[in-house]
């Protein structure tokens, strides 16, 4: 497959092991990946790389996940990129709040990898 045919996914996740797992999973399923360990770097990378999809850990330190989500949703150059949220939080009405903030979907950790792949496929198909 030509490099340009591969969809590019930006992963913003502070846990290195999770980043490794996600990168490996996505690469072996035909995606190219770029990674950021913190929110600020993630926002800069989103503007620079213009990915097809962003996977964002809501639990980035110091409330960074929410900040990144709002920042990307409010920016003209990135608000068209679908954002998939990963979270360990189990709060009521979380789905509704994430949608209002611009998320395309979310998964509770620990999630089922095939389910995540299916969701990514659907989002990129519709995008």
């Amino acid at each position, binding site marked *: 497959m030509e490099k340009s045919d591969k969809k590019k996914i930006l992963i913003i996740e502070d846990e290195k092991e999770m980043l490794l797992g996600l990168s490996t999973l996505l690469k072996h399923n035909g995606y190219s990946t770029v990674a950021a360990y913190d929110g600020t770097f993630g926002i800069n990378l989103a503007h620079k790389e213009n990915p097809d999809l962003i996977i964002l850990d809501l639990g980035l330190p110091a409330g960074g996940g929410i900040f990144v989500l709002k920042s990307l949703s409010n920016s003209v150059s990135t608000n068209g990129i679908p954002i998939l949220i990963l979270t360990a939080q*189990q709060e009521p009405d979380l789905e509704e709040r994430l949608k209002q903030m611009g998320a395309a979907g979310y998964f509770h950790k*620990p*999630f089922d990898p095939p389910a995540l792949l299916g969701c990514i496929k659907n989002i990129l198909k519709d995008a």
Partner: protein
Amino acid sequence: MDKKDKNSQINLRLVFQELKENPYKKFNIAFSLMVVIPFLVFTYLLAGRFFSFDILIGNIGLILLISFFISVCGFYVGYKILKNILNKIIFYAAQAKRSDQIKSTFVATVSHELKNPLSSVKINLYNIYSGFIGEINKDQKHIIESCQNTIERINRLINDLLDLHKIEAGAVDVKRKLCDIIKISEKQIIELDAALNNKDIVLAKEFQGEVLSVWGDEDKLSRVVNNLLSNAIKFTPDKGKIIFRLYKDEKFIKMEYVDMGPGIPSDKINRLFNKFERLDSEKEGTGLGLAITKDIVEMHRGKIWVESSLGNGSRFIVTLPSDLRVITR
């Protein structure tokens, strides 16, 4: 200010915020009205009838003065004692509230800190299992499957602990509406169909009528049905039978789950609904399912109990009031 005083100050501030006013102000006013006014009235009546300046001279004057002084001291001591009791009540209420807040934060943090590494392990195991890192043999796959099952068990335990904590802290959002317990049960039976088929268990449904209404939280009642049915499946041997009864008994809806399992020893029946109590440590489970089930049933003003003896299976019975007025009273 040492740490204990600092904490006391924080705790008191929390309670005052909650009360939206200073409780001591009202206490002082109430005490004053209770004590001082009757005292003044009594003194006035006494003075009006008996008073003359001659009384103040001599022994009677001295006795009156001493009595007056003792009364003032008595009232002061009484005031201090009552205020001390009020202080203690407020202090313990504040401590309990702060403790709840700390517990909630702790549980949320622990859940987050446990689920993140679990998630990392799960996805990396999946990658190895799928051959993304290299070919693996059958034995290696078997070990990975075992690890994956363990991850699922730990995840269920974390979720159960969180749910139990929320229920016990009264922090559960109960969304009540008119639910059909037959419809809820049918849905759970479909969800557990694979588990029933795996053990070739026959499920005999004895449902009275087509609709049995309960005023309750549909999600939580689904959990009750799922927990009890899953338990029955777990303890019923292969090719066994489970009887699931739903019927109305006067003002109550009754659910019965009858299994042909090994039964429960009489010394364990009383502990069955305790947290982390497990009848058979070899069977999968967190030991919290029945504790959570009991909490949910009691949340709905219902009751749950079990009738069982060794070698004769078990019958779990749940009653839920179907009358709306019982719930809201």
